[in-house]
């Protein structure tokens, strides 16, 4: 069977939704003629025409604002940020218009804002960011971050069908490195559900995005070398978080390690630590620990970026410390 890459899975998901629902359209820089900087929208202009695949001026705020306006009139826009780093230019529209609109006067804003996030490809401070927490901290939004091709497709479909604004973070490191066989039939991955990627009783590693693979590798090594069985949870959805799965893993193992590529202070690990403290403190056999990027911009040069990114070794170190606690 043919394997589908992560990036192709996103493309398929959008394509199928555009076939299924006339209200779905995409707008962004270079999404039409060029097919997108990472080719997520390749071929769409030809198939769907230039009113549904719109090359815009370099105006991230207008891209999102226009998507909001269209959504208010019943459309299902997908706004592409060429790199997710540029979402900062649309921050106001997203957090003040899209996020708060339903609450204020009942009119939902079903838009998807998506783009390539994450490091590992030497993109430097402006082509490697992980902006999730800016949006996880904004009531009214949803935030998802798939790690597998299956989820990439299932979550983009869920995001497009969602009645509320969804920030969809695709990890550019995974675009062509991850592939798998996908079901032929239509499916969605419900927003708000995590996936247990590996079962284990000794400790739980919670993570998402590209870090999932480092966590899984670390878990294998832990099992092989120390007989430690780590449960690995792929959060997938950062807002809302799947509390049941998170708390379940915490209760089962008593020891939780959160791993994220995002910088440390104010990262989602803190939120998870707080939830676990509040809800299942009595089950804890050790502190909630975290392995994260340090509090710096994402540096460009390979040795610096490697130092910056969490990896298997850093996870192993923290996991062993926690296991021994």
């Amino acid at each position, binding site marked *: 069977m043919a394997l589908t890459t992560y990036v192709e899975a996103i493309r398929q998901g959008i394509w199928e939704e555009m076939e299924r629902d006339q209200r779905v359209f995409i707008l962004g820089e270079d999404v039409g003629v060029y097919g997108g900087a990472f080719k997520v929208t390749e071929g769409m202009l030809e198939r769907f025409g230039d009113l549904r695949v719109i090359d815009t001026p370099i*105006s991230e705020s207008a891209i*999102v604002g226009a998507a909001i*306006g269209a959504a208010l009139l019943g*459309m299902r826009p997908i706004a592409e940020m060429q790199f997710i780093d540029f979402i900062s230019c649309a921050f106001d*529209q997203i957090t003040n218009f899209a996020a708060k609109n339903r609450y204020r006067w009942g009119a939902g804003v079903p838009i998807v804002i998506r783009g390539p996030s994450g490091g590992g490809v030497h993109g430097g401070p402006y082509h490697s960011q992980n902006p999730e927490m800016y949006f996880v901290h904004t*009531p009214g939004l949803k935030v998802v971050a798939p790690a597998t091709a299956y989820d990439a497709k299932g979550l983009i479909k869920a995001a497009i069908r969602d009645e*509320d604004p969804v920030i969809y973070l695709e990890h550019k490191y995974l675009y062509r490195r991850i592939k798998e066989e996908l079901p032929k039939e239509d499916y969605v991955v419900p927003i708000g559900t995590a996936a247990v990627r590996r079962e284990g009783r000794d400790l739980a590693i919670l993570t998402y995005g590209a870090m999932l693979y480092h966590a899984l590798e670390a878990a294998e090594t832990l099992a092989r070398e120390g007989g430690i069985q780590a449960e690995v949870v792929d959060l997938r959805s950062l807002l809302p978080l799947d509390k049941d799965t998170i708390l379940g893993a915490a209760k089962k193992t008593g020891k939780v390690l959160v791993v994220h590529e995002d910088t440390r202070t104010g990262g989602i690990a803190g939120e998870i630590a707080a939830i676990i403290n509040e809800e299942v403190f009595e089950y804890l056999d050790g502190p909630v620990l975290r392995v994260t990027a340090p509090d710096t911009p994402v540096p460009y040069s390979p040795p610096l970026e490697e130092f910056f990114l969490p990896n298997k070794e850093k996870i192993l170190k923290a996991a062993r410390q926690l296991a021994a606690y």
Partner: protein
Amino acid sequence: MLTRERRATARAAAASPVGRPGGEAVLVPGDADLLKMLHFMKLTRALEYRIERKLYRQGKIVGGVYVGRGQEAISVGAAMHIRRGSGEEHDDIVSPSHRDMAVFLMQGVPPERILAQYMGRKTGLTRGRDGNMHMGDLRHRLIAFVSHLGDSIPVAAGCALTLRMRGTDQVSFCFFGEGATSRGDWHEGLNFAAVMRLPVVFICNNNQYAYSTHVSRQMRVERVSDRASGYGIPGETADGNDVLAVYDAVGRAVARARRGEGPALLEFVTFRMTGHSAHDDAGYVPKTLFEEWERKDPIRLFESELKSRRLVDALALKEMESGIESELDEVVAWAERQPYPEPEECLTGVYHE
């Protein structure tokens, strides 16, 4: 309340609609239109007077109050061209700014619900979640203003994009003050609309102040409409205190947009006859300017015009006013009776439920 709402909607739709779906805009207002304009200018002034000079001072308004006194001709003259009452597929869509009370009224929002909004009551348009002119209702084809000036420009363009996709001749109306034109979003929205040739009419009330900031510190151009040439779209400046001039300029721009010829930027010069908000005494505005603009009061000018056309006389005006006042007595009484939202409602409606 529903009865009231239906009544108001009916009233707003009743007077001859300016254009028929698919038809041409009518550029010369008929007598009924003229009277309708006068009515809504007066209703707006009276309602805002109640809010700013009565209820606010009585401590009955929850937050800030921004009124459009002296600027009524702009909202009214423009809103005459908003097609409404014929269903979603025909009606226009509107993004008013924070000084466009008349637009709400003319789109059929009952005055009492606006008051309930100002008073933080459950029956306000936002059910107490937001205040003053920050309200919308898609049934009335109104998109709520957000404080952040300029944000509504790309949103209005996005509405127009949808209309263009659907191939209708509907139009997106977008209102703002001259100060908002300094925002980046204003630029991005105008440029986007221009490049995509979208059916949106940009309507600027240049009341010469943004809070305490004079327009000369907001921009170096003489006229806001000078900015249009940077987008390759038509720009036009007209007297914002002459409701017929507004009616004319907006009518032409709307007709153009309906024909698929793209956006236009209209500037209506007027004056903010109050402080920025009810708590601001506008001490920074030279008194003489108030005097000068008081003489150009748009309602008085329009009354004279209609008198000279023998459409109204002193008695008719008096009747119109006392009709409005007694309606507003009722409206205020109704609003004051409205309940506040239950505290727990704070938690609902962040997401689709």
